[in-house]
């Protein structure tokens, strides 16, 4: 019964962007236009936020060439999210990392990826009678309008054994993000200690918002051996912690889980 989704792929911000569409506008002109808007939105974010581009607003902000007020409002939004995440993670998550000379450098990558993908998905929400699943480098947001449609089946890749799955998450509408050891070649650190978190190989978070799924996955990962316990305190989140010994802990979220919004 399940309709085979139409698929689209591109590379933006150094990561693969994969889109699956099913429904009325899965493969027509409107679908292609929305896909174009998704990519344009991600490229615009890259121009603002990339720490790999010396001319991005964030790079210039980091070098002290600009004030926050000189930047597009999206930068203040992302910085505010990062600071909220820092508070809520007890300081394990931070958008500032020690620079070469020890002074803190602004690095909002831990917020930008999920936030940018969620923002880019706005174009897809305008497609009527169409379900989508959009992945930006392994973090994804999906929607299902048809109550009879099967949920999107999301495979959680094993962090230690590439090419194998450790779990499957059926998600109709929501977001899934995973943080782990090899995030764009960077080493995620516990900002409280400056050290790589011990014991944890990857954290996958399922939530209503991709922005917060991504932030919480990174924050939980940064907390190392405390990852599953901390994630369990987060409202409305479920997830999976895979440890370096290959074992996995599903996290059912706090009993206070309260679906909000849609």
């Amino acid at each position, binding site marked *: 019964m399940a309709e085979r989704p139409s698929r689209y792929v591109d590379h933006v911000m150094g990561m693969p962007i994969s889109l699956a569409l099913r429904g009325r506008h899965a493969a027509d002109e409107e679908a292609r236009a929305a896909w174009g808007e998704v990519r344009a939105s991600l490229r615009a974010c890259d121009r603002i936020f990339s720490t790999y581009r010396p001319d991005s607003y964030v790079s210039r902000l980091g070098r002290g060439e600009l004030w926050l007020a000189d930047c597009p409002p999206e930068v203040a939004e992302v910085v505010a999210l990062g600071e909220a995440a820092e508070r809520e993670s007890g300081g394990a998550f931070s958008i500032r990392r020690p620079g070469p000379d020890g002074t803190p450098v602004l690095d909002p990558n831990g917020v930008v990826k999920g936030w940018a993908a969620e923002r880019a998905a706005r174009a897809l929400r305008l497609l009527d009678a169409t379900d989508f699943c959009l*992945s930006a480098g*392994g973090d994804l947001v999906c929607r299902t309008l048809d109550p009879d449609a099967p949920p999107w089946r999301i495979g959680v890749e094993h*962090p230690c054994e590439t090419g194998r799955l450790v779990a499957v998450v*059926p998600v109709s509408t929501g977001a899934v993000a995973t943080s782990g050891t090899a995030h764009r070649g960077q080493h995620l650190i516990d900002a409280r200690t400056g050290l790589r978190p011990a014991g944890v190989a990857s954290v996958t978070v399922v939530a209503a918002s991709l922005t917060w799924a991504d932030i919480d996955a990174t924050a939980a990962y940064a907390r190392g051996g405390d990852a599953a316990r901390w994630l369990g305190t987060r409202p409305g989140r479920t997830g999976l912690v895979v440890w370096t010994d290959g074992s996995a802990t599903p996290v059912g979220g706090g009993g206070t889980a309260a679906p909000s919004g849609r």
Partner: protein
Amino acid sequence: MLWFLTTTTIVVLLFGYSTSTSGPAAVGGQSSAVASGDPVSGGSTSTSSTAETVTGPAVATRWGDVQVAITVDGSTITDVTVPVYPTGNGKDQRINAYALPILISDTLDAQSADIDMITGATVTSEGYVRSLQGALDRAGR
């Protein structure tokens, strides 16, 4: 084998409860079994000296796959969670949005798992061609 039998028993118990309600409420009943667990129960293996949490295999039922995890302290079952519950009912979307990952067995790989998309920390443009996501995208076009 003993664990399997125990698990099966609990599945029956849960569905005995579920069938006493109706339709979507039955799903809600299972969900509350998940939500009622202590938030730290997932980590109880490492936090308690005597309690042990064992996750049983996913069991096919007429309502869909069900997987149950039990925490045993000595000979007493102290906690039961349901990491896997049926998702075939389209009316449980709000629960679906926060669905729990279903642990899969050693023998199941991406090809046999009928996957739409991959979540992982290692998905970069450099590694994409050899990645599971790359394989899915190629297969889907």
